């Protein structure tokens, strides 16, 4: 097990270097840089822009910039944001936390709803209930998330017009006066704001999970040992939970590790429409403004998490499935 971990961690290095260098290269290949749009400001002189470019180190060769970045990384320094004039980690960190809340909640929703629904479908396949659920799940993937969120916000505004209050907040992450609330109220407040966007995020992933779950349970239920268990006269409940579900759920657990990087890459465009101060708005800003080190920093973190997530997934699998051993 230990040797396995070490090997996986060594594999991490080329992947990490490859991903960050690729990102660096793509970013630098794009025309212009952070300072290009300043050039159209009639109040700024070209000399000033040249000076800033030098100060930011943007006049150096790409490889040198990358090496310097790597060197700083060894000191735990992800570089300096051009936009914020702050260390990248300080800029990214609060956003990561915010995205974590939203994506975390959506993952909870996903498994909390997806697994039972999939099991239900597997127990009653080809019934109207099965079809209805499938259709709803399809509906979720077929509608672009950002658009679904916009529709919900519109409906909330109409609800507010009709009744003078709204069941869910219209965008944002915290209520006004949030800082003066006691901690537990703060937690509730954030969750209350997160429910709707998290729900929207879930709709897109729900169908794949329920479908997978349905298939797995159906497959397991068809196995000989289940028939044996039933033949032994074990109650349906025991057969289902003790024998079928535990085996059917293994592949699903393996996917949990893969969710780690999505935790920080954020919930996508939903965050923009729902005005959630997560990673996506920051990433879009950073790409737009060509804030080199914020971009590279996000890539570096997400690469790291992806690899760690994969390893964790493998380990989890070994824990739940005694047949799997790593040497």
């Amino acid at each position: 097990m230990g040797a396995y971990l070490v090997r996986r961690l060594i594999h991490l290095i080329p992947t990490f270097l490859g991903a960050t260098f690729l990102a660096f290269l793509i970013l630098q290949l794009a025309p212009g840089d952070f300072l290009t749009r300043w050039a159209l400001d009639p109040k700024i002189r070209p000399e000033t822009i040249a000076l800033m470019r030098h100060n930011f180190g943007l006049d150096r060769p790409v490889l040198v910039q990358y090496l310097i970045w790597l060197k700083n990384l060894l000191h735990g320094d992800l570089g300096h944001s051009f936009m914020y004039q702050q260390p990248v980690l300080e800029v990214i960190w609060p956003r990561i936390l915010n995205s974590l809340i939203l994506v975390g909640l959506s993952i909870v929703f996903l498994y909390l709803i997806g697994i039972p629904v999939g099991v239900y479908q597997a127990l009653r396949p080809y019934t109207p209930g099965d079809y209805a659920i499938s259709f709803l799940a399809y509906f979720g993937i077929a509608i672009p998330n950002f658009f679904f969120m916009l529709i919900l916000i519109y409906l909330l505004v109409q609800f507010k017009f009709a009744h003078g209050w709204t069941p869910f907040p219209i965008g944002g992450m915290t209520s006004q006066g949030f800082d003066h609330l006691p901690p537990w109220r703060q937690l509730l407040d954030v969750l209350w704001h997160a429910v709707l966007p998290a729900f929207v995020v879930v709709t897109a992933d729900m169908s794949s999970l329920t479908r997978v779950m349905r298939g797995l349970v159906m497959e397991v239920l068809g196995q000989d040992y289940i028939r044996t268990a039933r033949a032994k006269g074990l109650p349906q409940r025991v057969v289902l939970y003790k024998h079928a579900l535990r085996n059917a759920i293994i592949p699903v657990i393996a996917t949990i590790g893969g969710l780690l990087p999505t935790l920080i890459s954020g919930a996508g465009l939903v965050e923009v429409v729902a005005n959630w101060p997560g990673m996506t708005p920051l990433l879009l800003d950073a790409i737009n403004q060509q804030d080199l080190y914020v971009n590279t920093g996000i890539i570096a973190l997400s690469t790291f998490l992806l690899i760690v997530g994969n390893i964790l997934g493998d380990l989890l699998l070994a824990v739940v499935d005694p047949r799997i051993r790593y040497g």
Partner: protein
Amino acid sequence: MGEYRTKSHWQLVWQQFKRHRLALLGGGILLLLYTLAAFAGFFSPYDPNFYTLSPVYRYAPPTPIHFRDPATGRLTRPFVYGLKKTLDLNTFVEKYTEDRTRRYPIRFFVRTPDHPYTIFKVFRSDLRLFGLGEKATAEGARLYLLGSDNFGRDLWSRMVYGAQVSLTIGILAVLVALILGLLLGGLSGFYQGTRIRLSLPLFARATWRYLKAGEARGPGRVLRVFGRGILLVLSLVFWLGLAAGLLYGLVVLTGYSGAGERVIEALLMVPAALWLLSRGLLVPFTFDPDDLVMRLVEILAAIPGLFLLVTLRSVFPSDIDPLMTFYIVVAILSLIGWGGLARTVRGMVLSLREMDYVTAAKALGVPEFLLILRHILPATASYTIVYASLAIPGFILAESGLSFIGFGITEPYTSWGLLLKAAQDGGFASFADRPWVLAPGFAIFLAVLTWNFVGDGLRDAFDPRRRR
């Protein structure tokens, strides 16, 4: 049972597919959608870029179609009234009313000689399924099935033309992703464990053996000797160049570092350069292609998709024909999408290559590429088909997302994503005042839904365990 044996694999699959009612329904709708897209000119009453400036029919609602003669009250051939526009100064929205004094019958199989179109860019025609005719258009009458956009262009015609882009973009992207995924995944799985040599070190015995072997008699000997000589030179230049580059990098880098850091940098980079040098001169460099491909897949998976979409888009030159942007979008989408397929194909190939029939073929001396092409890849076909049908809707959605942030298809072409973006730009007005502009969203929904139905049906059909 005897009857079944006579059926081929594909007949069986088709038989199973037919039982999946949703899949059949989906297939039917898709057929319809693709027919609409293919003969867009025929099914649209107007050119998608046709508009007039006097007056501008900005955001006109769908034109009401009348079936009863107002005078007699009897059923008549469908007709529309003329269009009258006023600006509502209270809400700042254009108001459109029917001009009951003018009546225009809807004509079928109408010809529009002033606005011809082409089918597949080859056949020119001006025959349209329905329309009001050129004369009525010149008089300012319009038949907007789904209203108009801010230029006053017919949204239905634009949607039908947009289908060409939106529906093909998924298929093309999947095709490219399939080629990449099958090729790289297949090679990676097949050659897993075989090490490929990437350097011809000057002072290694293996190198000289290799060069000697080239001198063996046979057809194209001169070419072979010459080619291997060039390879030797290339290897030298490449590896020594890399080492020199690294050392140069070190020199430049130390210019930006403090004294202590310089020592560390030198300690890290000089050995690295020496290693490179040794690969060029002493020890052959070999690697497992499987490692390379899988690392590549991992790297692509590590970078957030949205980031790749947007930044790759800005790397490609945008000073190009709008049609090129279409291909670029395809390229970007497939570049992001091939990794998952490659990983799965690799896994399948890994187990396939150990199968008896493959080892037998190998023992019979079947060339490797034929082995892969004839015996291994076909075995992944069922998975590939299912993957493709389920990936297409993903790509269709990705295109709409790309258009949403302004990096997708550009005018004069249009796509459902672009049209949905226009609806989104209208904000709440699109829901409240002109819900018909959401139609492209419904089209996306329909296409994604039906492709999923078909994909599910195919999966069930291919999977012997799910047969009913």
